[in-house]
């Protein structure tokens, strides 16, 4: 056929050697932000940004949330819608949306945390067994693929299969254009370690008691244990709590509108008897607060905690009352 318009609408079908294609997916990262082009100018920069973003507070727009390593994956793409004519012609009319079902390991607490993401509109970056990240690029920025996930787990094991501690998650992608036509990859290079991208654990600061301007605050991981939350003091005899106390300069407190009026913290110590922090606020500023006034006690950021050897932890702010 000598005359064709194809040249202006299609590409040649040659192929580069070693072209990438998605391998077995090993890790998923929930990432609702974006990465600027300068930060994926080379693979090391991209990995470095993923590591940095994984240590952001969960309220940050660029926070990377890490799912546990995938142990099992099964295709769950929607079937293509096909049509046919009665003399035998058959064609794909509507392409099915991509998706898969994965199994990860996790206890009842993690299952509950994962289920908080059920049916939320999120974006996902994939990492496959070949060490390749898969993203979508839009307007010179890298994003995750638009998706919804649904997790369930903590079912009774039957003893017939590996079931105990297995969380089943269905991942459904919203756009074939994003997932197939505009997917781009970034490989990890030698020396790059994807395990540096970490998930953080929420640790609540909980009011215990007070004596005028001196407050006792416990550091606890909320969970499914009916007896109560887990006091992180128990994990190492107070070493971590002391490390948190040592970061007193990175704590802050504020009262008034938007908690914008500074309430200086003069010292923080570990109380080995109460298994808590002893937080002392400036008595002069504290004295100016009216009885019953609320003030926000804000901890160091995960990065600051990391720097103080309190790893993979996000401390959550607490509102205290005079």
């Amino acid at each position: 056929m000598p005359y064709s318009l194809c040249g202006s609408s299609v590409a040649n079908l040659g192929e580069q050697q070693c072209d990438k294609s998605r391998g077995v997916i090993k890790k998923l990262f929930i990432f609702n932000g974006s990465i600027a082009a300068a930060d994926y100018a080379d693979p090391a920069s991209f990995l470095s940004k993923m590591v940095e973003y994984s240590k952001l507070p969960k309220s940050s727009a660029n926070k990377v949330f890490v799912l546990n390593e995938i142990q099992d994956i099964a295709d769950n793409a929607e079937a293509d819608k096909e049509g046919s004519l009665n003399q035998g012609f058959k064609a794909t009319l509507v392409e099915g949306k991509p998706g898969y079902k994965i199994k990860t390991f996790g206890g009842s607490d993690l299952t509950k945390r994962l289920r908080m993401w059920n049916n939320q509109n999120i974006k996902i970056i994939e990492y496959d067994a070949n060490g390749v990240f898969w993203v979508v690029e839009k307007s010179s920025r890298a994003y995750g693929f638009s998706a919804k996930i649904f997790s369930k787990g903590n079912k009774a094991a039957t003893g017939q299969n590996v079931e105990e501690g297995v969380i089943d998650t269905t991942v459904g992608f919203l756009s074939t254009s994003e997932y197939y036509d505009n997917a781009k990859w970034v490989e990890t290079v030698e020396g790059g370690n994807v395990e540096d991208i970490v998930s953080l654990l929420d640790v609540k600061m909980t009011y215990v008691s007070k004596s005028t301007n001196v407050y006792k605050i416990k550091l606890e991981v909320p969970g499914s244990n009916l007896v109560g939350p887990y006091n992180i003091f128990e994990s190492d005899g107070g070493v971590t709590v002391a490390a948190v106390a040592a970061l007193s300069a990175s704590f802050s407190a504020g009262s008034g509108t938007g908690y914008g009026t500074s309430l200086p913290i003069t010292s923080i110590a570990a109380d080995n008897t109460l298994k808590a922090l002893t937080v002392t606020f400036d008595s002069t500023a504290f004295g100016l607060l009216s009885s019953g006034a609320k003030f926000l006690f804000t901890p160091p950021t995960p990065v600051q905690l990391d720097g103080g050897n309190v790893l993979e932890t996000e401390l959550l702010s607490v509102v205290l009352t005079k």
Partner: protein
Amino acid sequence: MTFNRISFNEKFWADKTESEFVKHEAHHGLTDEQLKEAFALMQPKKKPVEKPIKKEEAK
């Protein structure tokens, strides 16, 4: 600055007096001597004043 497992806010105490510090932080169970020692450790080290070199000495 951490002293006996107590992390004092060095920035806050930089412009306060020793007696204010000792009174304010007495509840930690440290002795007055220990508190004074902690306070001294938080004071910024002053740079030694350099004497101007006289021309005769320079020769």
